[in-house]
């Protein structure tokens, strides 16, 4: 009787309502996200049999992965490309976010943000491919230079890391602008006036007041750009012409083309681990900016 009462009381608590309400979404994420992630984690410790997976604990996949020079080279390239893309995107995006937050009248702000987000919602594949059209052998840049008589032979601008960085920096631009913009919007404008009243120049006020206060947005932008670019599959394939593969391409080849699921899983888990470690290290290095609130 007592337990029945307690059960009834529990049914009326706020916590129960919360759990009941969130359970459909939570179970979906458990079944289709947590369980699959656990599965590849488990697979990465299993042995590969022909067309099957042998459930026997082994560290061989990790040993193979980490001693494989191809994996190391590709992982290093992915990290470098992502770091370059992130740096380029954030550096280009910051002045834009600053312009919208400080120079644009409040009524026009959402129109500017709308303008910046539109290209982001148009077909990613076609946007990436258009860079191939621009940079290609008989592409826009080369044919324009040829008409102008500036070059004798077409320049080779595709199939290299620079082209990949450029394409990705273009594709991920809005991801960097929005968080920085939100952080800049939160800054109390009186603080900037105080800085100037106390005799700081405009640049020094920016350096000592605005920038530190905007850092949480910059950090968010860095992570939002860095994490998905490292797993990008399309750009290395189209712009790199398959000649400069990144981690996602390697996972796809190991998983599907070679059908070695344990090895593919070990690569996927290793890549996730590296991305997490790099992100945590970045957060740790910037921890003093994140303690600042308002």
């Amino acid at each position: 009787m007592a337990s029945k009462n307690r059960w009834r009381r529990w049914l009326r608590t706020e916590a129960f309502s919360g759990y009941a309400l969130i359970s459909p979404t939570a179970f979906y994420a458990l079944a289709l996200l947590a369980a699959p992630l656990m599965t590849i984690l488990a697979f990465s410790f299993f042995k590969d049999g022909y067309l099957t997976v042998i459930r026997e604990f082994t560290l061989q996949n990790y040993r193979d992965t980490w001693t494989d020079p191809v994996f190391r080279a590709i992982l290093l390239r992915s990290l470098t490309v992502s770091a370059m893309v992130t740096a380029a995107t954030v550096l280009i995006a910051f002045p834009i976010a600053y312009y919208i937050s400080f120079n644009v009248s409040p009524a026009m702000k959402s129109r500017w943000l709308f303008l910046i987000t539109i290209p982001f919602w148009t077909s990613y594949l076609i946007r990436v491919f258009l860079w191939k059209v621009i940079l290609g052998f008989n592409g826009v840049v080369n044919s324009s230079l040829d008409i102008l008589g500036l070059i004798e032979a077409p320049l080779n601008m595709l199939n290299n890391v620079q082209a990949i960085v450029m394409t990705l920096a273009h594709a991920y631009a809005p991801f960097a602008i929005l968080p920085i913009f939100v952080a800049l919007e939160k800054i109390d404008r009186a603080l900037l006036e105080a800085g100037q009243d106390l005799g700081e120049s405009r640049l020094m006020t920016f350096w000592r007041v605005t920038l530190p206060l905007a850092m949480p947005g910059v950090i968010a932008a860095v992570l939002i750009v860095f994490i998905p670019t490292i797993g990008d599959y399309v750009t290395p394939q189209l712009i790199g012409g398959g000649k400069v593969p990144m981690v996602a391409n390697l996972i796809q080849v190991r998983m599907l083309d070679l059908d070695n699921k344990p090895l593919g899983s070990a690569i996927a888990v290793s890549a996730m681990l590296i991305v997490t470690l790099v992100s945590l290290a970045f957060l740790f290095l910037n921890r003093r900016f994140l303690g600042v609130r308002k």
Partner: protein
Amino acid sequence: MKFPVLRSYAYVYLLFLYAPIILLPVFAFNDGTIIAFPLKGFTTEWFRQMAANATLRTAVQNSLIIAVSASILATTLGVFAARAATRFAFPGKAGIIGLIMLPLVLPEIIIAVSLLVVLLGIGVTLSVFTVILGHVLICTPYAIAILNTAFNALDRSLEEAAYDLGETKWSTFRLITLPLVMPGVISSLLMSFTISLDEFIIAFFLAGREPTLPTYIFSQLRFPKQIPMIMALGTVLVGASIVLLTIAEYFRRRGIAKTGGTDSGGFV
């Protein structure tokens, strides 16, 4: 504090942002099989080719089925989660929400690969349905982000007034809460629809032999002969997403106006 140089920088930046997209209609109407300057002449041949392509039609159909189902499911799951997140406190809430939002910070290839392994493991045949499963997973976090804003802007005293006037929990939700968050629901539907329609990597892994729009485009990009038609297709897609986004933006602003908030701008 203003830095006047930024104005010209912003316009140059917009040009950089739009440069590739401006090329789409230019080459879609260009009467030449090679995508290069100088332009040849005006033609609508590529649009005719596009309309006559049967595989493309199947791909569009599949993509529409996937995008409509995924956006409805993701928004429904999003409503549950956003309501729970904004209205109730319960132990472990941060962890549960964190798990649901995880796809935002997880490379899509990881989601695709892990789902593929599990689905093949339990013997599910890859089809349009399996793509829907994956897309719901990646659309839900965006739906929740939008719906959180909508539910947060909600004045709780309106619901309490309805309870006091004798409405039940469910009828209050249906008569008061839902109409007030409706603009949020609509922009979440449109946002999820757009994300799903454009998503490549999950569809590439989970669709089996069924083509979706992005996987079809990807397969055609290898053939130089098909490129002008893809340019025409791209033009149509860009037009369609601008229309969809304008509608989404309209509802977002109306939602803000309805709940009496100020426009802080932006989608994400």
